[in-house]
Structure formats: C-alpha cells, structure tokens
C-alpha cells in the first residue's frame, strides 16, 4: 500500500489495531475516526462499500472504466467533505448520493444528444402518466437471476439494460440495487416523484419487453 509518511505515522498510532476487525466497527465510528484524520478508518469504509458503489455506478454508466472513475471520484469527494457528513443518514446513503450524482453527471455529459426517447419525453411532460403503455403479462421461461451465469443470458440482460434511456436505467438501477423510495430517488435525481414513477414504469416495461424478445421465452404463470 502506498502511504504518505504522515499516514504511516498515523497507522502506527491508529485506533484500529491489527487485531481489531474493521467489520466490527460501525460506520459512524469509522466516519468519526476518518474525520479526525485516521486514513485507516477511511480505507475501512472504502473496503466496505466500494463494490456496492461500483455495482451502482456500472449499472448506470454501463462502462466499467467509467464506473471505476466515478467510484474513485466519489470516494475522493467523500474524503474531502467527510467533515460535512452529519450522520443524519447512513454513511452509505450519503456515499451513494455522491456516486449517483457523479454517474448522472457523467451520462448527461457524454450522452447529451443520445437517448431522449419518446417515453421519457412523455414522462417529463405528464409526470405520473403512463399513457397507453402497459406491463406485459408474461414471465421469462427461466428464472433470469439463476440462469444469469450463462454467458448469453448475461449478454441479453446487458443489452436490454444498455438500450434503456439513461434516465430510465438510472432509476431502475437505483430502485433494484438500493431499494430506494420514490421520494429518495426524486431527491437524488432532482425531479418530481411523478417523473420517477413514470421513468420506473417505462424502464421496467421496456426491459421486460426487450428481454422477452431477446430470450424468446414466454410463459403465462396463470395459464
């Protein structure tokens, strides 16, 4: 590990001893220590959440290198502003907002022209309207989660996700990975709750339709 001499000094005196498992320390304590300059504590937070942050970022930006950049910037930003973290939410809630803001900034910047799809345009104008669209009463013939280990299945899902508009994908990933409420997503994305509902509805519907097309498996549960 590359460490500045000052950090090495701190490591020697760190409050996290080698025999003290970082897993046993709660986030707020680690944040307090990181705020006091304990780099080891901040690294423990990184180790705890960087994978989750990467999953979120890669789900949104759909490019592994860009997702790594986003996560890296997010942790640097978190470190810089950790003094402002008040502890009213969990550390990860605070972190994912930073990750999402950077990821959304990224897709807005790099795909400004692309991906303004019809559904989203309708969603912005009539935020809680779903127009004439409806969910497809079909399920995939295989459990997509279990069969994802298969390469082609992964590719299908990756393709379907990539074909969603950026806003639809961002909302879908936030919801499915983080389980955020509509209100929380609206705050993160700076739009109304109705817009979130509309985006999520269309994202799921488009994802479902595309997956059925790609996988060709349809089965009526109730039939």
């Amino acid at each position, binding site marked *: 590990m590359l460490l500045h001499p000052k950090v090495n000094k701190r490591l020697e005196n760190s409050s996290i001893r080698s025999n003290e498992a970082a897993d046993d320390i709660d986030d707020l304590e680690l944040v307090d220590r990181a705020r006091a300059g304990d780099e080891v504590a901040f690294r423990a937070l990184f180790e705890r959440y960087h994978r989750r942050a990467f999953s979120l970022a*890669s789900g949104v930006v759909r490019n592994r290198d860009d997702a790594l950049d986003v996560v890296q910037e997010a942790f640097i930003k978190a470190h810089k502003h950790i003094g402002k973290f008040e502890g009213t939410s969990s550390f990860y809630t605070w972190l994912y907002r930073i990750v999402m803001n950077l990821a959304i900034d990224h897709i807005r910047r790099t795909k400004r022209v692309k991906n303004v799809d019809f559904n989203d345009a309708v969603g912005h104008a009539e935020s809680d309207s779903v127009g004439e669209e409806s969910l497809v009463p079909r399920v995939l013939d295989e459990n997509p989660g279990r069969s994802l280990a298969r390469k082609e299945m992964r590719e299908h899902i990756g393709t379907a996700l990539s074909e969603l508009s950026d806003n639809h994908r961002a909302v879908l990933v936030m919801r499915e990975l983080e389980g955020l*409420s509509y209100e929380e997503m609206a705050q993160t994305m700076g739009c109304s709750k109705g817009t979130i509902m509309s985006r999520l509805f269309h994202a799921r519907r488009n994802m479902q339709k595309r997956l059925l097309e790609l996988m060709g498996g349809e089965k009526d549960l109730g039939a």
Partner: protein
Amino acid sequence: MSAGSKKGVSDMELMLYADGELSTDESRRVAARLAEDPDARLKLESLRQVGEAVRTYTELETDRAEAELPAFADMWQRIERRIQANGRAPAPDEAAPTPMRSKAAAAGWWAGIRRWLEDHRGHVLTGAFSAGVACALMLALGPRVRVVERVRDGAPVVGTPAVLRSPPEVEDLEVYEGSSTILTIEPEGSDDSAAAVIWISDDREAKKESPL
C-alpha cells in the same frame, strides 16, 4: 388507460404495490384484488423478474470487473494518491492526472475550472495582486480624466467617471417650490469647459410622488 387489468388493478398501482409505495389500506385493497386476478399476478411476477435480473446482472458484472480489471484492484492506491495530493502542495510528478482520471471522472466544465483554479491558486492570486497593483499605479500616475458633460433634465449620466484635481465648488440655491445644487468644476486648461449644473430636486414633484 389500458394499463388497468380486468379486476381494476392498474399497472401503476401494481408497481406501487410491488415497490411498497402504497399506504397500508391501499396495499390491502390491491392484495385482495390480486387474489382474484391471475393477469395482475402475472404482471407482478414479471416485475419481480426484471428486478432480480438487474440485481444479479450487476452483481456478476462487479465480480467480473474485480477479477478482470487491474484498475479495480488498484483503486484504493489511486484514491490514496489523490487524497494525499489534495492534502499538500502537489509535487511536479503528482500534478499530472493519474491514469484513472479521465473526462468521465470530471464533474463538468465548471468543476474543471474549479479544479484548475485550485491547482493554480498561487498563480491566480499572484496574477490578481499584480493586476491590482498595476491598476493602482495607473490611477495614481496616469492622466486625469476631465468632466466635460452637461447633465440636464434628468438625462442619465454617461461616460467615464472622473478624477478631479480639485473638488468641485458646490452651491445650494433656494428656488420657487424646490431646490437646486450647482456644481462648478474648475477648468484645467484654457480650452476646457467650466462647469456642470445638476438639479437635485424639485419639491413640487417630490410632494406629488410621495404618499407622505
């Protein structure tokens, strides 16, 4: 909308139910309708499948990235370098962007300008100080600007603000239902105009406009 199913559970209601966004009462009502509506149950199951697909896919992609990308394993080192560089004056070799830093990581053009300003704070401050000193010297040593404008009838003042060698002579006059002030500016040379007159107030107009 055609989103509603036969038993009256709309697709939007179904989604809100699946996401736990309905109130307890609404949720119970939808659950009761679902029991009688196989079409709606199928849609609900399809929603759950989509969610599971997204979750499992992103998890597998993260596993792959961790296994395949050296940059993933090195992420902490890069973060640490940046943290350290932010915490002290950057050495010449650290001032260059790290390999991971790309346009994707920058937070827009404004963030870029801010980052540049932070990186070059010393130069910016030196430049600003030098510019200030230069302005002060020009004001102190440069040629005087003369006021030669005549202002009348409330016309807006235009032109360059003046710097005068001697203060203008000010004279207040009482006039019928009003007052005025005359500023007389001494000429600097034989060819210069002598004075500007500015009417400050007219009591009759002031009385009309003020409710007091």
